[in-house]
């Protein structure tokens, strides 16, 4: 029965397999402004895999998570929160992790306006306006909440107002413009922005840095075959040995990809449990 069912599924799935489109999801952890770099990344994968790759970009983490759960995406470059969330529900496998500045990790930055010379902790922002990146972002939401809880504060009432900005870059904009007094962003995003749009990051100041977390991983849905995952991993890990791949990596401000270990995200999982997000 099972064999028949597999056969039927296989036959039904044939046209899809024949199309062989690989759907690659991107979360706002990657700057939208770096879309040309992402397109180059897609083209690179397309050439190496020998099959079409479709880039699917969504503004919110939740949408990306949903699409993976619904198997509308095969592969996705996500952030720590979605990975832990999806992994917790046993929906994805880790394909690779980027090595950034020589380390497979990133942090959360607490940023404030450049005019604010005193703040060094989120605890000093009582009754201020605070900008979060996304409700499903570890660095952009969970980390400040965790810090507040650890200090015995209620994140719901500590700030006078909070809002979500649909992306880490927008947190930087909100803080730079004065819309928010503080915000929490992905260090990978802020550091990339500091290179691409230094005049924007110059209006903000990093007031605090969190501990290190596993860097935003590339994951594959469970419906993707082990072969495909293996091939993709091999291509990603070999990018830095290839002149074209190196160029794309430089544009993405990534040193290279490593196989990675899901234990890198244990700290994230722990914090998410603590804040009730898992």
């Amino acid at each position, binding site marked *: 029965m099972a064999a028949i069912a597999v056969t039927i599924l296989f036959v039904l799935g044939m046209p899809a397999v024949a199309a062989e489109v690989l759907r690659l999801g991107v979360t706002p952890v990657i700057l939208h402004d770096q879309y040309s770099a992402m397109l180059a990344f897609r083209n690179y994968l397309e050439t190496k895999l020998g099959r079409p790759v479709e880039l699917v970009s969504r503004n919110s983490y939740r949408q990306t998570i949903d699409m993976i759960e619904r198997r509308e995406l095969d592969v996705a470059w996500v952030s720590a929160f979605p990975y832990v969330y999806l992994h917790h529900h046993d929906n994805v496998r880790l394909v690779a992790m980027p090595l950034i500045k020589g380390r497979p990790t990133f942090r959360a930055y607490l940023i404030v306006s450049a005019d604010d010379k005193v703040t060094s902790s989120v605890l000093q922002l009582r009754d201020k306006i605070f900008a979060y990146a996304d409700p499903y972002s570890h660095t952009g939401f969970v980390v400040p909440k965790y810090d507040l809880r650890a200090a015995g504060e209620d994140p719901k009432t500590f700030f006078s107002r909070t809002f979500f900005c649909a992306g880490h870059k927008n947190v930087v904009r909100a803080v730079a413009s004065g*819309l928010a007094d503080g915000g929490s962003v992905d260090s990978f995003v802020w550091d990339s922005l500091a290179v691409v749009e230094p005049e924007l990051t110059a209006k903000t100041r990093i007031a605090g840095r969190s501990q290190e977390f596993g860097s935003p991983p590339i994951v594959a849905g469970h419906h993707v075959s082990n072969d495909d995952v293996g091939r993709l991993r091999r291509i990603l890990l070999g990018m830095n040995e290839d002149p074209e791949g190196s160029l794309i990596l430089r544009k993405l401000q990534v040193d290279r990809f490593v196989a990675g270990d899901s234990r890198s995200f244990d700290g994230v999982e722990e914090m998410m449990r603590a804040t009730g997000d898992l």
Partner: protein
Amino acid sequence: MNPLDLSYRHKIPLWGGLLVVMTAFAVSAVLMVQTYEEMEDDLVIDTATLAEALAPEVFAAMVNGNIWRAYDVVSTPLDRKRSGPNLPGKAENIIVVDNNMQVFAAAFPRLARVGADLETLGPEFTAIANQLRVNAGSSESVSSIPDSPRLFYTMPIADQGARLGTLVVVLRKSSFMPRFFEIARYGVVAAVVLLGLLLPFNWYWGRRMAEPLVQLTERMREVGTQSPKELDPSLYTHRDEIGSLFMTYNRMLAELKEKGELERQVMQADRLAALGQLAAGVAHEINNPLGGMLMAIDTLKGRSITDLRTAKTIALLERGLDQIKETVGALLVEAKVKSRSLSERDIEDVLVLVLPQVHKKGLHLDWHNDVVGEVALPATLVRQVLINLLLNATHAAAPQGQIACNVHVSEDQLRVKVANDGRLITDEQMGHLFEPFSPLSEEGHGLGLWVTYQIVHQLGGTITASREGGCMQFAVQLPAGRMPT
């Protein structure tokens, strides 16, 4: 000096120039005011269009409590990087306020902090908040706060009656001023160019208008003090009022001249008549004793005078008395001499008499005589007149020159014209031409013309001297058919 007393030469161009300048300024001012108002209107229209485009998006953001989305929507149109800093009509800020008059989001959050009460943003905003409370902000409106450089455009953020707040667009009134100044600068340049063309034209035209009037005035002022000159007709050729003024002036001048000439002639005649009377009276008074003296000398000479000295003295006396008699005789022109009538022969005799003199000087004589038969005029006197005039002409003519004599007779008068091409007589000399002992006479006693005048006058005729075509001409008219009795 009163500027209204200025000469027309300056007044017309100045007035014209003043009018041109005033017109240019008035038109420029009207256009500028209109441009300013249109720009202000445009600012409001642009703002209304912007607000209408933003309001639905802001409504959606407010429904979801999405501060970021509201900020993103209102800040995008004001993003300096996207639209450039000098775009006209740029809003200073766009503020989203909720129904509690608290800032929900703003394009420039540093100027309007999220969560702040609208009143706390400044006195202008307090006034706006009050206005919104009073009219409930039910419709869009433009508010201008006194003493504020800003305009406030408010628009309800509502959908199908559900009102979430108000969109407040803060405009700087002067935001279009750079553009307005640019347009105004073009206007001023155009006006200056126009003035540069019109003012010289106006100046030229004004001077042209005034010049004939000025000339006329100057000439009129001369009337009565000196002999005025005629106006140059080429100065003004049109047949309008000024043209007819020119013509009238010239006619008046001609009449004045004629009258002056007439007066001069009358005066001369009066003077000559008085002189003639005086001369005749003196001559008569002298003639009587003179006759006695001459008779006495005659008697004395009849006796034989042996004393040589006495004989010499008597001869001296006789010569002196003869000279007096001759002079007095010349002064005393007696026309009342019995004479036969003038005949063709008499005129030809005169020709024979003067020809030797004429030939001696090598002159060319142009002779015309149409007297045929007898004319009822005393022959002796006419001959004397003719001889006098011809001899004078011969003297006056230039060597190898020309003289002309024309004797013409008609039914009732004899006309004689004698001309020579010698030196012309001056105006001054003309005035004293017929007086006795003329300084003009280089030889003789200067009584020739005096005698001629007296004869002509006593015969009831006229004699005139004139300068015609470079020739000195004497014309005599004698009424014929009247023999002196």
